[in-house]
């Protein structure tokens, strides 16, 4: 039974939630605000919050200097490709672990996760040399595969957790009705796990979008995504914070919009199975 909540308590809770939300969002808000300032206003002390002459100059300069669409397109292909490929491999893997576990399933899951514990730079040279040998440096397809492999443990883990919440009886009933494995996966399991799969897709898309080690180190011109676009505006010798902020805003805008529209799915997926 739900506890009775007094109106005052409700107002206080709402206020606290908004305050925490604002605190977390503030750095992004500040970046967006800074992108509309001049370089001098961007570094003014004390900082200017809203009281400045808004300008689009930084966006114009960034547009002129960089081919934003090329970086954006690369990000979409790399993040999208690696996520889709990852899901295709992870769904059957998670299915077998959740519904026909063996003695070693738990160990395998943990072992998969252990690959995430190695710092990426530790394998930079082997992977770089492999890419040279295969002739796939600065190649989107190579990054799709590499980012997929990096995120695969997380995808499998997330899907495994969601699948475990689905009663085996339902799948058995389907089998008794004569469903093949493909039909079982496609028509029974997937529809029931849609919130879980959706949030896995979204989270991995965001992870791949933000990945800034491999996407910087394995690309040059052709495959460089938005992470390289941002890195080109960071400068240790010179104050170009407004332009950097404009570039950052342009880089996060697509993912911010995507997150905004899919927040219902995202929240539902992330809390899926949280209440027993």
């Amino acid at each position, binding site marked *: 039974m739900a506890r009775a909540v007094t109106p005052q308590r409700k107002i206080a809770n709402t206020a606290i939630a908004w305050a925490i939300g604002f605190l977390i969002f503030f750095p992004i808000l500040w970046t967006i605000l800074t992108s509309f300032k001049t370089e001098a206003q961007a570094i003014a*002390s004390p900082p200017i919050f809203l009281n400045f002459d808004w300008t689009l100059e930084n966006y114009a300069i960034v547009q002129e200097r960089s081919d934003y669409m090329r970086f954006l397109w690369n990000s979409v292909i790399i993040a999208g490709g690696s996520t889709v490929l990852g899901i295709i491999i992870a769904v059957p893997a998670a299915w077998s672990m959740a519904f026909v576990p063996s003695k070693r399933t738990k160990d395998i899951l943990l072992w998969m996760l252990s690959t995430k514990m190695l710092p990426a730079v530790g394998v930079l040279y082997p992977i770089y040399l492999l890419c040279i040998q295969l002739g796939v440096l600065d190649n*989107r*397809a190579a990054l799709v595969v590499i980012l997929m492999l990096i995120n695969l443990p997380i995808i499998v883990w997330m899907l495994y957790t969601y699948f475990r919440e689905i009663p085996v009886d339902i799948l058995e009933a389907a089998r008794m009705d004569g469903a093949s494995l493909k039909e079982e996966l496609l028509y029974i399991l997937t529809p029931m796990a849609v919130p879980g799969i959706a949030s896995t897709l979204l989270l991995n898309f965001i992870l791949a979008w933000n990945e800034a080690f491999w996407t910087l180190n394995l690309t*040059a011109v052709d495959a460089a995504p938005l992470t*390289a676009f941002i890195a080109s505006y960071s400068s240790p010798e010179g104050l170009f914070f407004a332009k950097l902020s404009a570039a950052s805003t342009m880089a996060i805008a697509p993912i911010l919009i995507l997150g905004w529209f899919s927040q219902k799915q995202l929240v539902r997926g992330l809390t899926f199975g949280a209440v027993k």
Partner: protein
Amino acid sequence: MFMRTALGAASALAMLAGTAAFAESHAKTITIATVNNGDMIRMQGYTDTFTEQTGINVEWVTLEENVLRQRVTTDVTTKGGQFDIMTIGMYETPIWGANGWLVPLNDLSAEYDVDDILPAMRNGLSHDGTLYAAPFYGESSMIMYRTDLMEAAGLEMPDAPTWQFIREAAAAMDDPENEINGICLRGKAGWGEGGAFITVTANSFGARWFDEDWNAQFDQPEWAEALNFYVNLMNDYGPEGYATNGFNENLNLFQQGKCGMWIDATVAASFVTNPNDSTVADKVGFALAPNSEGVEKRANWLWAWALAIPAGTQQEAEAKQFIEWATSKDYIELVAANEGWANVPPGARTSLYETAEYQEVPFAKMTLDSINAADPNDPTVDPVPYVGIQFVAIPEFAGMATEVSQEFSAAYAGQQSVEEALEKAQAITNEVMEGAGYR
């Protein structure tokens, strides 16, 4: 069936990505890796002129300095062949040249006039007398000070002051009530940030990183004197939290009128005198970096961003053509004609400093004097086995100097004493040198 369709779709996507990349790589194009700073960005704007003249397309990969270092180092050591030209500094050039990773620039054309390159720059970018990178712009460090505050304090800045005078001037200009710090200096950890500054300061107190047998020298009195002087000066008259201030933070403070003096890269002069960005643009004077009384070496460094060709590139001839264009006298004139003499890349060519129009730029003479006062082959009072002023040109330096500068920054922040920091620096350095087989 489902799996087959899915895998088919995925491989089609991968192939699509692959062919697009293949088609783009077929034009006659050179790829240049570079840093994001004003002069480099300006050069990107003039690339069309080069393409019109030669028919060679240019692709730019601009990255933040530290990202760029890691990126081009990986590529050059594995012969990845991603870049036809790399922007590298005075630290990397001699080491990479010695390893055979760079194409020697010993056959540049007569019109290019290689002898016109400032001798300090040419030496710093050569190994065994062979030039491996052409300087695009060069810099040293110098004092920038507020002429109005200096006058109000009743002092006059000599052209070549001592540290003792700097302390006196900092005390006179320090005005906490009006948020003016007597002096702003780098304290941020990192070999190229605070590490570079404290190394040149130590040079000007007679200290050095190593003796001739590669023994670390942090246990010597000169280092203690230099570091104590710096910490006391900054604690008394420096800004709050100076242990995390680097070039950009100090540039910001100075432009906002919050520093009496700032000792840093000569390239900063064009920023602090630019009225669009700086509130003190018309009140800035320049002087040579200081030395301690009786020490002949001054605290000024030498650095160049230079263009080099990695060995194994398929487009060596085109890359050389670009380097000749970008570091030529004609390029300087092109920029001067379009954007004024104050905006040309400084510090690379002797002829620039002989140009009458350039001599009128307020910081031109002091920049040249500072560059000429720096000698990477003879950086310290006592002899050393290494080349380099604010760095030691050995591959191990970047790693250990970063660690050492972290210890120093901890001392600036008051987390440990100067003596503790020096002890740790001594231990770190000797350990690295032993491991690498120098001792």
